[in-house]
């Protein structure tokens, strides 16, 4: 255990610098990139005086580092700014609700992906050489290769229009113990299917490859040689070792899912953060873009840290390697 603490401390010390770099880069991209939120507000009607006046009132004509300093000062005091679209709403009043929406259904999709992908990968590995192995993987790969933009209309056609089982889109929240929960409504079934179907293949393939690798290990041969039942060999020796690398891809899988959220949210009418951020970029809604970037970056730092610590616990080799991995 002695390796973990300094490792964690070092990562935590670096975290603010990472956030600072991320915020500075994003801020600079917004301010120096083309387009201006006030001009967008005006649309084709253009009155340079009005633009200047509003830019001045909003502090958008201050020197870059003054603007950045003011912004970061406000952020440190819990003020994430206000939105341009819709106008004048505190950013924190909107984005946490929207993030919560996106996180809810993404977590469900993540659980489904691993719950199906892992057993399917092991199953396929154990049937290597038979027709069942390529068939299983091919089916998952099929869903992986069909773009989400194609899957969604097909799902909607089948389940909403032809069968009439599900509403084609929408998001209904229920109040459960003071939390707004949207994943208990049947509307969420199609979005979760659309998000998880493509992801299963990646997990199943990785799990299959890991399982095959572990099956070749000496300790598996030993376990079999000492007469353990096959179920025990697979569950206690093979699966546990093969699962190890899977912990590292949970984080990445979540990133992939969040990327797909944009389409899912747009086509299913889910008021999540993906769609909102996309609109914000188009509108040059600086404060929203900054807030989403900072929160996402913080979440990644924490998630990465947790992954590394977990990994250290599961695999002693990591923490015995002289203070843990350097990143």
């Amino acid at each position, binding site marked *: 255990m002695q390796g973990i603490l300094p490792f964690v401390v070092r990562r935590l010390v670096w975290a603010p610098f990472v956030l600072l770099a991320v915020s500075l880069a994003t801020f600079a991209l917004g301010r120096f990139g*083309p*387009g*201006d939120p*006030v*001009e*967008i*507000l*005006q*649309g*084709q*009607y*253009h*009155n*340079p005086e*009005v*633009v200047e*006046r*509003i830019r001045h*009132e*909003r502090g958008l004509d201050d020197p870059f580092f003054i603007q950045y300093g003011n912004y970061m000062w406000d952020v440190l005091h819990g003020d994430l700014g*206000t939105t*341009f*679209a*819709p*106008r*004048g*709403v505190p950013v924190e009043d*909107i984005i946490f*609700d*929207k993030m919560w929406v996106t996180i809810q259904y993404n977590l469900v999709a993540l659980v489904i992906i691993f719950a199906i992908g892992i057993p399917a990968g092991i199953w396929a590995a154990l049937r290597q050489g038979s027709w069942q192995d390529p068939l299983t993987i091919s089916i998952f790969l099929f869903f992986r290769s069909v773009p989400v933009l194609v899957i*969604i*209309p097909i799902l*909607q*056609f089948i389940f*909403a*229009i032809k069968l*009439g089982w599900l*509403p*084609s*889109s*929408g*998001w209904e929240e229920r109040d459960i113990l003071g939390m707004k929960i949207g994943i208990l409504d049947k509307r969420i079934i199609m979005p979760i299917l659309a998000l998880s179907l493509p992801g299963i293949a990646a997990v199943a393939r990785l799990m299959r490859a890991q399982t095959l690798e572990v099956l070749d290990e000496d300790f598996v041969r030993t376990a079999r040689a000492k007469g353990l039942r096959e179920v025990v060999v697979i569950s206690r020796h093979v699966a546990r070792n093969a699962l190890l690398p899977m912990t590292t891809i949970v984080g990445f899988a979540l990133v992939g899912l969040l990327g797909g959220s944009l389409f899912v*949210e*747009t*086509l*299913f*009418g*889910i*008021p999540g953060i993906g*769609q*909102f951020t996309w609109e914000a970029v*188009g*509108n*040059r809604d600086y404060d929203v873009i900054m807030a989403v970037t900072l929160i996402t970056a913080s979440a990644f730092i924490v998630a990465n840290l947790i992954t590394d610590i977990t990994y250290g616990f599961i695999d002693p080799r990591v923490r015995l390697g002289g203070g843990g991995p350097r990143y």
Partner: protein
Amino acid sequence: MRLFLRSGCYGLAAVVVGVMALLGGCGGEEGGPSDEGTPAAPVTGGELRLLGRDPLTLDPACASDVDSANYIVEVFGGLVTIDREQQIVPDIAERWDVSDDGTVYTFELRRGVLFHKGDRQVTASDVKYSMERALDPDTQSTVAEVYLGDIVGAEEFIDGDADEVTGIEAVDSYTLRITIDAPKPYFLAKLTYPTGFVVDRRQVDGSTCFSNTNWQRRPNATGPFKLKEWDLGQRIVLEPNSRYHLGAASLGRVEYTLGGGSAITMYENDEIDVTGVGLNDIERVRDPAEPLNQDFHEAPRMDIWYIGFNVGTPPFDDPKVRQAFAHAIDKDKLIEVVLLDAVVEADGILPPGIPGFNEELQGLEFDVEKAQQLLAESEYGGPDGLPDMEIASSGRGASVGPVSEAILFMWQENLGVSVSTRQTEFATFLSDLRDGEYQMFELGWVADYPDPENFLKIQFYSGSNNNYSHYANSEVDRLLEQADTETDEATRMSLYQQAEQIIVNEAPWIPLFHDKFSVLIKPYVEGYTLPPFVIPRLRYVQVEE
């Protein structure tokens, strides 16, 4: 071009689709005001479900986009409004007089116009307050000057040289006098836009377009509907204002779903009652064998989609080059093959239906020989003498879209010129456009109010901030200035028509087409109109249970 990205049913419109019985003056049931002459039809209930988008703002002073305006005109009201026949009619004002010189408007306010909450009546000082608030620089409206800037004293007030707008006088509680800087016949039309609509000063005091906007979640106003709920990104719910002074709406509830989703799928699955139809579905819904065909309606929109030239940059500084490019486009084919007849061909700038539309206008017709000849006569001497050319458009797609592709192909085929494309997303496009970075560009313009000034003066007057072609013609300027203050309607329209013909001939733009609404409306929805610009229309709608 952005036109087919939107799902279409919000917005604008021209013909009355579906027939409905006129709301009679049959006495209020729900405790409407007892004043004579304020008919209140019984509220009969029925729910209308629409797909919408979050408004950018529900503050009338700040609204500058169609989405916001669509909600605002249902919830708020001003001195005048537009009815479904697209006539300017009284709203809070009961009648008005215009002075002989056309600059002084005296509005007599209707008595007994109540705010949604409580029993407070709207008075002339409420109107004055609302207009001055919109013009106040602290409010940070981007459009107040466009819509209210003609009022005497507005400029001084904006510049901080005056404490009030001297041209807006509350003569007594029910008389308001507005003086404008010159006789401008389109001034009343501008007042139908939300900017100067009446707000409750007790509610909005201290708010701007960008701060303290919370009141917009439950605005207290005077329109035909009350905002019951605005759950960001999820839904907006309207309920009828039973005391509405022009007659209460028949609908019991209007729900807008804001999250997005596939509109036509939602319509087919009976989740919404109205939807726009995109190009992908247009052939299907036009097929008489298709059940949806029964619900299909089309109506013109007051807009124009065009290719604009920057007349200050080579080679489009030579009118002959611009004319050659215009003559080389086969619009009939473009509209039939690429746009599936979902639009109307444009010869000129003004769309049909707008006052001043000229049936006799001579467009630059498709004529390959003439095009080639013009190009040869130009100072560039033919296709080989032309510099590199690029056409800019806004969009986030991977390709420029079929309309551009077809036009580029026609130029290649008919003139032997090759033009490259540049596509940027809207924010960048807009700022580059303003900086005059483009040789030519594709763009559209949608009417804000039904007047030719809204197209011709804004786009082609040499001093206009919106003249992205940098077109300048002293004769056109003179005609537009004269039309600005001409009080005789026929003369005024004739001036605009003359200006338009010169513009079309000199081709700073190639007008391509006017858009149409292609909409599905459920058979049980009656009176849902498709007006070509934003008007309060929901009070005419009835839904049969």
